[in-house]
């Protein structure tokens, strides 16, 4: 209701000529009321407030006569309110998200006089179950064979091509290992040391001194530098590499 219409404004938009008259309200044939509503092209022309007041007056006059009418009155007002609210929703938001039908009882919508061909119940999304099954012993064995195969192939390459012409550079692609995950891990490590005010040296990023790890880490650093996340400095050839966190990530 973001048009900011106050209740008084709503009422003032309605003309007296279209108010539900007291004859209708006191009629025992209440189904007729809804038919009458249906004949209004613009539901704004009907005032729920005025209608309710008329009804209150009628009720006072009726005193203790026929109270069965009151329930139907509530139903009628609510149907009308829904029609109005739907219209208001469409005017203000291009028809998006008519929240109110959540709060209306399904039985109420099925009220025989309520003829809204456009209404459809909202589908219910089925609850999907995602089952992750256990790994079998055979699969464990096969995983070991795969790990051994990858390892032996890498060892063989290392023996045959000591000059590292291998573009693979130790990134175990067969493994399904995500290079970006490794980049993030290394960057977190660098940032942690950096935030502690420590001098971040290449050698301090290594868990062990293997050639393979050095290549992996160096490659990851180059990527981080190319992304502007870090700056690498080397004072003189073959000296340790000093790493600084890029300005964008400084102080995080």
């Amino acid at each position: 209701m973001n048009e900011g219409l106050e209740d008084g404004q709503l009422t003032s938009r309605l003309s007296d000529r279209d108010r539900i008259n007291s004859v209708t309200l006191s009629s025992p044939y209440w189904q007729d009321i809804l038919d009458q509503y249906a004949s209004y092209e613009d539901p704004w022309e009907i005032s729920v407030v005025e209608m309710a007041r008329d009804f209150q007056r009628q009720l006072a006059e009726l005193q203790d006569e026929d109270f069965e009418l009151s329930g139907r009155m509530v139903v009628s007002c609510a149907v009308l309110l829904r029609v109005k609210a739907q219209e208001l929703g469409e005017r203000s938001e291009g028809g998006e998200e008519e929240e109110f039908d959540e709060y209306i009882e399904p039985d109420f919508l099925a009220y025989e006089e309520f003829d809204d061909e456009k209404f459809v119940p909202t589908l219910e999304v089925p609850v999907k179950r995602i089952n992750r099954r256990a790994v079998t012993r055979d699969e464990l064995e096969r995983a070991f064979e795969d790990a051994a195969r990858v390892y032996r192939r890498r060892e063989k390459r290392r023996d045959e091509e000591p000059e590292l012409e291998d573009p693979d550079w130790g990134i175990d692609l067969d493994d399904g290992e995500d290079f970006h995950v490794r980049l993030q891990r290394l960057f977190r490590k660098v940032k942690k040391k950096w935030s502690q005010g420590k001098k971040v040296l290449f050698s301090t990023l290594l868990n062990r001194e293997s050639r393979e790890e050095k290549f992996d880490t160096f490659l990851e650093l180059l990527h981080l530098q190319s992304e502007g996340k870090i700056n690498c400095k080397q004072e003189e050839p073959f000296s340790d590499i000093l790493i600084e966190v890029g300005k964008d990530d400084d102080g995080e």
Partner: protein
Amino acid sequence: MESNEERSVQDPKALVEAALFISSDPVPRSELIDLAGTPEDELDFIIEEIEDDLAAEDRGLRLVENNGNYQLRVKRFILPRVKYLAPHQDISRGVLRTLSVIAYNSPVLQKEVIDIRGNGAYDHIDELISRGFVTSKQEGRTKLLAVTQDFLDYFGLDGTEDLRKGEDLI
């Protein structure tokens, strides 16, 4: 917790239950027949037995058959209590309502859907097409929208007639 681990002869009913449990999707009848290694009428007997077992008050599941595909599901009246344990569902409410309008009227002119759901529904329709729930076909100056078999499978329906009959959707 498990006895007779190494049993080599497997009870066909146990196999059918395991297959239905392990699969996240409905399992075709033919698959169950192959798996259980039984003739068709025996599979029917097994299915019936499983259904009878599940009908007991102290069981939380039910067996659902759709187009010859079988699936275990949580009983409807229990589902609201446990569904928070299932992974997050991924169709927004606005999109779902647009999908409902298309499904209940399928095939339906895009123009009519927009009339009912407003201009925002253009985006919803795009999303529904890209998810494979809806197809779109040029029809004069507007488009004719219809729900797909993927839609029916996802919502566990035999056809859109199910919707018009006002049957339960899950």
